[in-house]
């Protein structure tokens, strides 16, 4: 390279400098772009979160400050809404939470057992009219709850189940939730049929195959169904409103409404405080079962 003229060297250096400037500019643009994206996402999530943040902040505010200021930060943090709210109704919230937990936990168990059982039949067993019944079941997804509300009420009235938890829980044990059945059918269909067949040759009955092979392998689907089922039942308002009359048997959503008195002396602060508390089990349940979804997928190492 001894033939390299000083001119050529200078040109090469210039080219290198230009390339460097361009690279720096490109990196800067990329950084700005990333920053913009983050700002956009943060702003959007704040907008989404605002109602929740407002609820939490309102639960700490004094009663007169809740609707008078837009400020999210309370002038003083008061726990009195929580303390007074818990015992603020004729019946303590301990009872309401217990009631809600009984209804919800039993409903989740009922949904998981009965829906997976029905789904197993649809996904794996041969029986006459299988497609017809599957279509029928899917059609129930499209019927609004309000259509069946009155006939269902009359049915439970005749059974003498009004003012008990039975109308809320028993249907869950009868695979009444087509959405979960559909979810599980889809999942079961993905499991290799050879697993069933191998167990069949080993002499296991269809019930045992369901229990020993299919269920343990369906943890992700079960966890998903459990989470949805828990959230929906926990926050359910209309069915408890219709079937429960005695305040002692109220669930949390019904109890929250009691803070809104028709005579105008509503205890909003306490209601918001109890609303915040009512979110806690849902969040806990989600965190717990969401791990199962991840673990379930990790353990299903099938080819």
């Amino acid at each position, binding site marked *: 390279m001894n033939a390299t003229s000083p001119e050529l060297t200078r040109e090469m250096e210039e080219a290198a400098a230009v390339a460097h400037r361009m690279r720096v500019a490109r990196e800067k643009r990329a950084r700005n772009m990333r920053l913009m994206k983050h700002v956009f996402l943060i702003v959007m999530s704040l907008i989404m979160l605002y109602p929740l943040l407002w609820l939490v902040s309102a639960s700490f505010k004094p009663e007169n400050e809740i609707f008078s200021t837009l400020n999210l930060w309370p002038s003083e943090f008061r726990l009195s809404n929580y303390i007074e709210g818990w015992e603020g109704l004729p019946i303590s919230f301990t009872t309401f939470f217990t009631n809600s937990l009984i209804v919800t936990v039993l409903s989740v168990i009922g949904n998981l057992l009965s829906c997976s059982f029905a789904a197993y039949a649809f996904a794996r067993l041969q029986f006459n009219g299988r497609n017809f019944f599957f279509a029928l079941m899917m059609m129930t997804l499209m019927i609004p709850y309000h259509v069946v509300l009155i006939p269902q009420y009359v049915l439970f009235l005749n059974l003498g189940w009004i003012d008990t938890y039975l109308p809320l829980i028993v249907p869950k044990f009868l695979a009444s939730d087509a959405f979960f059945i559909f979810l599980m059918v889809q999942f079961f269909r993905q499991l290799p049929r050879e697993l069933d067949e191998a*167990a069949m040759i080993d002499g296991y009955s269809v019930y045992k195959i369901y229990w020993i092979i299919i269920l343990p392998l369906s943890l992700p689907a079960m966890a998903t169904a459990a989470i949805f089922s828990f959230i929906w039942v926990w926050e359910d308002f209309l069915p408890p409103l219709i079937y429960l009359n005695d305040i002692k048997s109220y669930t949390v959503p019904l109890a929250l409404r009691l803070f809104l008195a028709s005579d105008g002396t509503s205890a909003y602060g306490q209601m918001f405080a109890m609303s915040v508390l009512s979110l806690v089990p849902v969040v806990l349940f989600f965190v717990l079962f969401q791990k199962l979804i991840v673990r379930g997928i990790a353990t299903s190492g099938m080819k």
Partner: protein
Amino acid sequence: MAGLTLRNVGKTYGAVEVITGLNLDVVDGEFLVLVGPSGCGKSTLLRMIAGLEEVTEGTIAIGDRIVNDLAPSKRQLSMVFQSYALYPHMSVKKNLAFGLQNQKMSKAEIEEKVLNAARILQIEQLLHRKPRQLSGGQKQRVAIGRSIVREPHLFLFDEPLSNLDAELRVQMRVELASLYKRLKTTMIYVTHDQVEAMTLASRIVVLRNGVIEQVGRPQDLYKRPANLFVAGFIGSPKINMLPAVLDQSGGTARLTLGDFGDVELKALATADRAITVCVRPEAMKVGMGEIRTTGTIQLVEYLGSEMLVHFTTASGQALLLHGGGETELDYEPGQEVNIGFNRADMHFFDASESRVEIAG
């Protein structure tokens, strides 16, 4: 131990006939291989024997008991699946014990049988692993282990080696053969790989479109294929097929064999004029043979111990020669060579593709 008898067995899915009027006797202690191209009904037949698929026609008997309506578990057989079908949520040990747990058997007895099977298959060190922590070959061993712990009277294998890589497949093939020698239990093995069929089988059943094309020992199928399909399917590299015209008008047989010219033969037991002559690639020789022509080398595949040479004749007929790797001639593509074979190496098939023998 048990033999197996199939009588007029048929299978239809709606209007589609998968297997028709199939008759087969499997002798007790035999290693029978069902082989055929994909879609020939071999897996369906195996599943029918296992009881996983309904028999729509005819009877299947294990020993002297007709099992058509018997549940799979009552047939005293076990099956190894192509995908192994190991239970992903159970350890290897549990997988092995699973088939014993619902029989009335003590824990100690189960443990002993599981350990024994693990010893035979050399998977003792894997007993506490989950299937996903195993390699393909190890999964295969566990799947076989699961079937031998139950000490069945009949083993069924559904393409058990097709998910393994080439090297492992050869190794597992040898192990399966030695397992068979050790257990001496009737085995029915489905594969599309004719090499597996040739190496493992005491007898081979060649299936096509749900019909048995030929049943026989590997050497019978190779030396005397019953029809053109078997001739083409059994044997690797594939047999050479030459269209020929047969003239038996003058009391003798005169065969017009394309570029190889006319050949005088003893009379053939057919009235057809258009026939097919097959010659195994290893029967093709360079510069030798009673029947010869000139061919142009297209491709030489040198494999060390053996060698494949692809030719085309003047009329464009493709020919394959399979020789030992020690062949000293240095073949080059484009080279013109005199190639030939002997009369005794020819197989004849008539217009309906059935084997034709030399009369007398």
